[in-house]
């Protein structure tokens, strides 16, 4: 279980009423946001959500049209100067300067006027942290995408920043390079010395790394909180989709009490989580892996139990996707081993169980 956000330090960087105007709609419109010392914050959202803009504004590389930023209790010019000294930014397409990998990693140190032997040492440590000691003497232009990104991260880490900004660092890499980089980033982020702000459109990366996740769309924050929060209490279908709950169906509410609803679909009553009034139409969202299939009815915690017929079985990677008809239409995902155990095939009738809390209902 990940540490809760209350374990992170106090807020070191706060932004208020940040506004960046766009041509038709604002590129960024955020009332309040803060970064806490030592935490890993993911900024998640689709392309065009405003993630990069947010990072650049927070890193004080881009001036917002209105709003204020305070860093380490300073603001204005002083904060900007301090930000340059105490933060480092890794761009989506890092620009590597002509020269060796070593000279690129040492660049920030050179700009700050560090002596050459201390530069050497620090650069080597940073390279080791990213696993690229072997590349130090290589020409920086002759690197693969993944190697170049590591160099970019290493040169940022060489500066020992209080805040490390990573703007979609793995987006331009192929799948294997991306996985490897995200793993290394996890080690880098967890060394505890600095806060990490990571912008990404990949929900797996965002959720696996982060202490806290901010989900953005159209320049605004839709929801923020720790990953579990978002998983269990998505505020709208968008967040639910972001966290993987993309399957849904419509139903009507028959009764409601304390966040628990009874919805009616296809002559069946189901219990779901959400807030709505009786008579409302709702969209119920769930994750396929939250459906539990069995041959016979099992007494257990899930409130919802019904029978359904298998209409289709399809492979989905190493798992199987099963379409079911009964109390509406459903899609479940199970392992092949489980399918074998159930002797599952088309037209088989089985029992389906799903927890009420796994069914998220949103007003339509």
């Amino acid at each position, binding site marked *: 279980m990940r540490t809760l956000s209350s374990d992170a330090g106090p807020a070191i960087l706060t932004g208020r009423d940040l506004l960046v105007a766009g041509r038709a709609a604002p590129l960024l419109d955020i009332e309040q946001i803060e970064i806490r010392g030592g935490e890993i914050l993911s900024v998640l959202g689709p392309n065009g959500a405003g993630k990069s803009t947010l990072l650049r504004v927070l890193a004080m590389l881009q001036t917002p049209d209105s709003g204020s930023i305070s860093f380490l209790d300073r603001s204005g010019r002083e904060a900007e100067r301090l930000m*340059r000294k105490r933060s480092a*930014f890794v761009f989506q397409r890092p620009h590597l300067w*002509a020269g060796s990998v070593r000279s690129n990693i040492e660049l920030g140190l050179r700009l700050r006027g560090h002596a050459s032997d201390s530069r050497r040492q620090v650069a080597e440590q940073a390279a080791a942290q990213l696993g690229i000691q072997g590349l130090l003497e290589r020409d920086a232009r002759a690197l693969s*995408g993944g190697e170049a990104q590591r160099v970019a991260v290493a040169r940022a880490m060489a500066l020992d920043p209080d805040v490390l900004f990573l703007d979609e660092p793995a987006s331009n890499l192929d799948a294997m390079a991306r996985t490897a980089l995200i793993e290394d980033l996890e080690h880098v982020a967890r060394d505890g010395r600095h806060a990490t702000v990571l912008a990404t459109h990949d929900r797996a990366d965002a959720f696996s790394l982060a202490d806290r996740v901010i989900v953005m769309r159209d320049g605004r924050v839709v929801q923020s909180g720790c990953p579990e929060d978002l998983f269990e209490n998505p505020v709208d279908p968008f967040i639910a989709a972001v966290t993987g709950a993309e399957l849904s169906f419509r139903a009507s509410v028959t009764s409601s009490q304390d966040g628990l609803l009874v919805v009616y679909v296809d002559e069946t009553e189901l219990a779901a989580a959400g807030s709505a009034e009786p008579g409302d139409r709702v969209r119920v969202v769930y994750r396929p892996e939250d459906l539990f299939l069995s041959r016979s009815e099992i007494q257990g915690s899930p409130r919802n139990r019904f029978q359904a017929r298998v209409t289709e079985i399809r492979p989905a990677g190493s798992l199987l996707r099963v379409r079911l008809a009964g109390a509406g239409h459903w899609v479940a995902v199970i392992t092949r081993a489980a399918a074998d155990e159930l002797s599952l095939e088309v037209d088989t009738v089985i029992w389906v169980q799903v927890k009420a809390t796994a069914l998220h209902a949103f007003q339509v």
Partner: protein
Amino acid sequence: MVEYPSFLPVSATFRRLAPLSRWVSLVAFVSLVSGCASEPAGVVYLGSTTSVYDTGLLDTLVAAFEQENPDLEVKVLAVGTGQALALGRRGDADLVLVHAPDAELEFVRAGHGRNRVTFMRNDFVIASPAEDPAAIRGISETETEPGPAAFATIASAEAPFLSRGDDSGTHKRELALWAASGASPVAPWYQEAGQGMGNTLVIASERRSYVLTDRATLTVLGDAADLEVLVQGGHLLENFYSIMMATAGRNQAGAERFWRWLLSERAQSMIASYGSDRFGAPLFSPVPFVIPDDSAAGDGSEATNPVVLAWQLLTSGDAYVIDVVLRSLAISGAALILAVLIGLPIGVGLALSRFRLRMPVVALVNTGLAFPPVVIGLVVYLLLSRSGPLGPLELLYTPGAVILAQVVLAGPYIVAVTLAALDSVSPDVRMQARGLGASQWQALLLHLREARASLVAAVAAGFGAVISEVGAVMIVGGNLAGETRVMTSAIVLETRRGNFSVAIAIGIVLLTIALAVNLLLTLLHHRGPSSPIPA
């Protein structure tokens, strides 16, 4: 029935025509083609001194001749006495019309010319602006040979004197006058323009110099030059024009027809009256002559290969060539440094800024690239001339004027290429540098460093543009020997004088420099600006 061999590329249509008509069309076709390929019935090339041409007399005479002889065309090459004789020597001119008796006699003696007839005259005068610093105004009244006497006075007063310096008839007479005066003209008061009579007079007016000129050109120039006749008269200021046929000329028959016509009554009476309606008195007078009957044509002597001579000049380190080359490099170098100091910051500023008028300003800069250099020369000339806004600076015809023109020439290159160089580097380079802690200034320097290959290319392009330009440098510099004569204008002058070996020598140096600059540009282009990592 004629059968064509089947391998001949004769079309099927042609084969189908009746045999007789095939022959007719074939003959017609061949004569049409051969008719197009051959030259018109008669072209005669006349190499002439510039003074006769500048007055417009030659145009009038040639028009009258061609009207009476519609099958002949006379092409006038008004290149100055020196080169006219060179053209005659090589057979590139069929006739020469010059005014340098010693050179003419040598020309005939060597067998290059025949049928020499002195047929018209006017006189030389010494002209100057009204100031007359050497006080030679009254000399014509007190001396039988005022020419040499005036020259001696000018020399002892070290008053400014401007020479043609181009081996023309006028120049040769001037040198003879110096010899007769017993004085030796030296810099800095003695300058050589290296240009035709008209241009030399304009420069002399601008620089308030004494100048030797034929009276006709001065009269025709009128108000364009602020000069008046100060000294005239005496045998040594007499000016005689002769016509000769070149033995190596290709159109002997046509040349003879023009020669005879020029010596006919009609032509002579045209000469006698030319100019009286416009200037009050005729510009030339005919001279009594006897038409000779030279049937003997001498053999032209062999010309030494000018390319070989040029190479000798280069390897022996000829002083004149070295002087011209070094001056060109100095002037263009200075101009380039100034252009970079002004243009680079402007280019950087344009690349970094995003103000509203940016687009039109960039378009303006790019238009500057396409500006004809000679027009730039004209504009700078108008600014620097005595009556222009920068006249008081007295920069015209000094190296400063040439540098100014070249700065204006090279400036747009520097700005445009700097702009392109900076834009070619990835746009967020500066932001990335700041993301690593760079100050605004450090970020800018890093950006420039990334584009440094292209920036050097900018400078090289500017240098290439100015070192090979000829129009503007001549207009504002005047091609004065030892002062504003650069490689390109020297080539023009020496070619005109017929000194092809010198022209070729300088040309070789200029070509080498241009090649070196282009080589540098190509090398830098391949190194190229930084490319982002492969995605």
